[in-house]
């Protein structure tokens, strides 16, 4: 129970899921060792605050542990499921954070958020891949995934028709997929 060192064993995903559902704490440790840093990075990207991101990560892991019975491997990869929980937790925190400062000048917040993003990007050292994305693609991914805006909110903010939001989302992911495919060669 005390041993929180990295386990050296390798688990294939199906095995890992079975062990998680059987409430094997070692499986959860394995999960943490392999996915926590990525989840933490995503939480930082969403919340732009280390403390909040750490809270989100903790809460996400508790939810993962408590809800692992609901994970259905036919609906997608375990990693996707983990990220969804993490993202939902982080977005909820983001909304709470935003509500707290609602009374304040929205413009200031937006400015501060932009600055945070730039700092964060430097800190993280975002790879070339992100830079290769067109700003149009980057914006849509940022707004949808990291800021959790709805399609209609995005349409309103960007001043484009609702249908175009879907098209842009599609273009963004298609472009991203192509980049990744090129990367592998």
């Amino acid at each position, binding site marked *: 129970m005390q041993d929180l060192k990295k386990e050296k064993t390798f688990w294939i995903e199906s095995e890992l899921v079975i062990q998680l559902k059987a409430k094997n704490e070692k499986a*959860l*440790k394995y999960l943490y060792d392999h996915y926590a840093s990525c989840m933490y990075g995503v939480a930082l990207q969403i919340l732009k605050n280390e403390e909040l991101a750490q809270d989100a990560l*903790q809460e996400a892991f508790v939810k993962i*542990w408590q809800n692992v019975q609901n994970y259905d491997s036919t609906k997608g990869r375990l990693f996707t499921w983990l990220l969804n929980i993490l993202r939902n937790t982080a977005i909820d925190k983001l909304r709470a954070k935003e509500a707290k400062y609602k009374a304040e000048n929205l413009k200031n917040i937006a400015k501060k958020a932009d600055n945070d993003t730039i700092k964060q990007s430097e800190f993280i050292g975002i790879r070339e891949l992100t830079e290769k994305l067109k700003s149009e693609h980057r914006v849509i991914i940022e707004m*949808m995934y990291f800021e959790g805006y709805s399609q209609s909110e995005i349409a309103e903010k960007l001043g484009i028709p609702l249908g175009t939001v879907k098209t842009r989302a599609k273009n963004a992911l298609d472009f991203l997929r192509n980049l990744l495919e090129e990367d592998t060669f």
Partner: protein
Amino acid sequence: MKVQKFIESGILSVYVLGAATEEEKQEVERMAALYPEVRQELESLQNAMNEYLAQYEVPVPAHLKQKVFEKIRNTENVELNLESEHSSDSRIVPFPSIQKWKYGLAASLILLVFSALLNVQLYQNLKETERELSVVQAQNVESQKKITLLQTQYQTTEQKLSLLQNPDYQITYLQGLQEVAPQSYATVFWNEKENKAFIFTNSLPQPPQGKQYQLWALTDDNIIWDAGVFDWGKFSPVKCFKKPQKFIITLEKQGGVPKAEGKAYAVGSVKS
């Protein structure tokens, strides 16, 4: 085509980017379950997004792991709500609830009954096995006896065969006398060179208790030599020092006599 149009609409990307409405989510999941092309495209986009997100990887501060697992244990044990303020208090030592204790007791009793039944079953199996083993052991002893007997018989046969094959041995057949042992016979193997002799008979009647057959050799000078007693049914060595004319078997008292007293049972002339 409907499926192609669905894929082209961008709804899958919106889903992957977490911006799908509740109806859209259900629609995507329904279509993915129905059409392999949809599912495949969804997975492909999802994988691309996962790979992209993996690039945001940031090392987690080391102390966080301990915190995360403490929190999980606390929520597990005390069954605290996620939002509870106490959930991060690591000093709480949870006392198992009565409910859990009841389940535990029930489970223990079930296990105990199951274990007892299993023991009875195993004990019966053991008894059965022991019984079978004793039977097999008895059979084994019997088989061993048979083997010993067969080995003796085999050795006897071997010896006889070797004597038959040895040209130095002269073979004399003794015929059972009409009055006492008709149709009986005995065989004497005599090796003049080595002064060795053997007798074998089991066709003479088995001697009664306290009695033994004795072999006599009658030489040309009409002297009767004591060739010794022998065991019925066994291939037995006898004594023969001079070339005999005749062999005679008499039934004498156990251990033999110096001069023949009993009835003659078989007589055979040695070929010259």
